[in-house]
């Protein structure tokens, strides 16, 4: 006997709404077929739930009660001044901006039309052109049976297609800004596809922010596919800091690193009620380096999950992960880090660390490191800690006249600072710390 699983309200409405808006989504026949296949896939998979091993701490089926209407065709009026307000601490960064509002590219708000060494196109435009390139972009190149990625393929409205020329040294960071604005609760799916040529160097920042006063409820599904060419140097930062009470942030990074390349990734997640950040990294050439870190800040009933899979498929690569979470009230943080070392991946050097700081007795941090090592000549290690604020250090600070609330912020900043500083670039570090300080000040 087979048991028919009851579809939830959210699952049903995702399927229904796809049928009503499919004609408004960009792309010709090829793209449209890919969307339909993804929608069918989603209908078959449903939202991931706790009985699926990778999702055991984050029951999306249970947590995502409804599917908000797609934001396709959004034309919310916004000014550059609005974008600056929404960007907060990132507004000070001297960067080339590509701005999207509720998932639609907005040229008049952007400032990246002419960046030396880089070609930037709107995904919607490329999808609409059709042809092989469009169908290629419709493929997320990630895991096949991921429902969140399938939703992204079915529903993506826009995003950036970035191509960094070989050996280009891109001067200013590229800031891909996704603003949530307006009074209509919506579901926004965006995709960025980034190709970095050999020996090029570039800094790319994705920001997910909202305009103050925007409707509290929102769902964002974002996927970024990035391939890092041989000996290229990339800094890739995501700053998901919506700041509203009822926002779901689902993200996927699909990273491919070629020989000798140096890829640094960082993710900040704060001010979202429910987040699942998946990162899939594959090494495709020897002597490459991955340095991945992240900070997640949660309070109230926030639930923030970071799940990553690093696949050492070739020898002699180095991977580092450092993730730190600060959790208050009833917030829950999840970190799952799987490191696979394939039989041929000798001389792999991998280290992983995740640390939770619990500010309340009801906060929770679940950490699940997983090493799957099939090669023998490797150095791999992982660790996970979970602690409360150090009372002795609090006393030490207070005995020097520092009030308890200030001491607490000082110690929390120092805790997350170690991960943020991995970004390396001082201005970006300062902007990220600016977001974190803003979050801490709301306590």
């Amino acid at each position, binding site marked *: 006997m087979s048991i028919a699983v009851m579809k939830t309200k959210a699952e049903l409405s995702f399927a229904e709404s796809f049928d009503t808006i499919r004609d408004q989504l960009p792309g010709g026949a090829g793209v449209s077929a890919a969307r339909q296949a993804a929608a069918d896939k989603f209908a078959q998979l449903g939202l991931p739930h706790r009985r699926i091993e990778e999702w055991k701490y984050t029951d999306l089926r249970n947590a995502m009660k409804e599917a908000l209407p797609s934001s396709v065709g959004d034309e919310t009026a916004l000014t550059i001044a609005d974008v600056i307000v929404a960007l907060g601490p990132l507004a000070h960064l001297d960067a080339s901006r590509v701005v999207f509002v509720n998932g639609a590219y907005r040229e008049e708000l952007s400032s990246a039309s002419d960046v030396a060494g880089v070609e930037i196109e709107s995904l919607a435009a490329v999808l609409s052109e059709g042809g092989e390139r469009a169908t290629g972009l419709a493929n997320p190149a990630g895991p096949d049976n991921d429902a969140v990625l399938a939703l992204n393929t079915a529903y993506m409205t826009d995003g950036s297609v970035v191509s960094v020329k070989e050996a280009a040294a891109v001067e200013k960071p590229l800031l891909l800004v996704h603003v949530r604005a307006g009074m209509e609760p919506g579901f926004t799916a965006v995709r960025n596809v980034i190709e970095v040529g050999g020996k090029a160097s570039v800094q790319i920042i994705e920001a997910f922010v909202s305009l103050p006063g925007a409707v509290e409820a929102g769902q964002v599904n974002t996927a970024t596919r990035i391939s890092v060419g041989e000996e290229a140097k990339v800094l890739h930062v995501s700053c998901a800091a919506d700041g509203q009470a009822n926002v779901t942030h689902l993200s996927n990074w699909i990273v491919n690193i070629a020989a000798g390349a140096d890829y640094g990734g960082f993710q900040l997640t704060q001010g979202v009620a429910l987040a699942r950040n998946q990162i899939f990294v594959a090494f495709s050439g020897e002597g490459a380096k991955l340095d991945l870190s992240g900070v997640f800040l949660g309070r109230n009933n926030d639930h923030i999950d970071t799940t990553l899979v690093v696949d050492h498929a070739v020898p002699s690569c180095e991977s580092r992960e450092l993730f730190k979470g600060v959790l208050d009230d009833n917030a829950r943080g999840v970190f799952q880090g799987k490191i696979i070392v394939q039989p041929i991946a000798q001389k792999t050097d991998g280290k992983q660390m995740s640390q939770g700081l619990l500010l309340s007795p009801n906060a929770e941090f679940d950490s699940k490191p997983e090493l799957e090592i099939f090669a023998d000549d490797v150095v791999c290690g992982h660790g996970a800690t979970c602690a409360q604020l150090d009372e*002795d*250090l609090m*006393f*030490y*600070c*207070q*005995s*020097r*006249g*520092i*009030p*308890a609330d*200030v*001491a607490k912020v*000082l*110690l929390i*900043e*120092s*805790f997350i*600072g*170690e991960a943020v500083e991995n970004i390396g670039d001082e201005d970006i570090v300062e902007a990220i710390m600016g977001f974190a300080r803003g979050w801490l000040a709301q306590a």
Partner: protein
Amino acid sequence: MLEIKNLHVKIAEENKPILKGIDLTIPKGEVHAIMGPNGSGKSTLAYILAGRDDYEVTEGDIIWNGESILEMDPDERAASGVFLAFQYPMEIPGVAGLTFLRTAVNALRRKRDQDELTTPEFMKLVKSKAGELNIDVEMLKRPVNVGFSGGEKKRSEILQMALLEPTLCVLDETDSGLDIDALRVVSEGVNALRSPDRAMLVITHYQRLLNHIVPDKVHVLAHGRIQRSGGKELALELEKSGYAEYGEEAA
């Protein structure tokens, strides 16, 4: 003036009494030394003055400038002039020394109704005080006390004291782990702060420190009580006899 009256202290979570009726008065302008065997409760007395909440006062009172400080948080006590130089200064990974010092100095200045120092004013002050204590300002860019030697940590405590301008200075075994040169530098730093407005309580196991910081009075703490009080010559006597009669072999 500091007045400690019939002070009884136990460990907060246990029923273990440590201080069993301490009476001690230190007028402003005076330096008193407390000596005693290991485990006699010297650090406990220091912590209880600074307001650490691992301990519980079961009886008695601590009066500073005419007011009981028992109900005050550690930072309020610091604002009222209390400073403890820790026997084991703590390391704070991730917080740069200069950030820590500036945060503390300006927090105290606010509480004392003084204007905050600007960054250049602060740096000028730090440079001059650090120079007097042979501390390289570069060291203060590193996280607080992280990777410091024992002696560097003790000097960094005295630097904090000099910057925070307390009026009740409690030094807990500031001499331990110092070689003779460092001991001289630290003592000069402490002596520079001696003034008619300040009371000091210098805790030590050895008489050596008291050659440099000459006390007005010496008290012997053992078994949770002040067993004897006298002038500076009491320290010399203890140096000869050791703490045997107080329950510990001569050092």
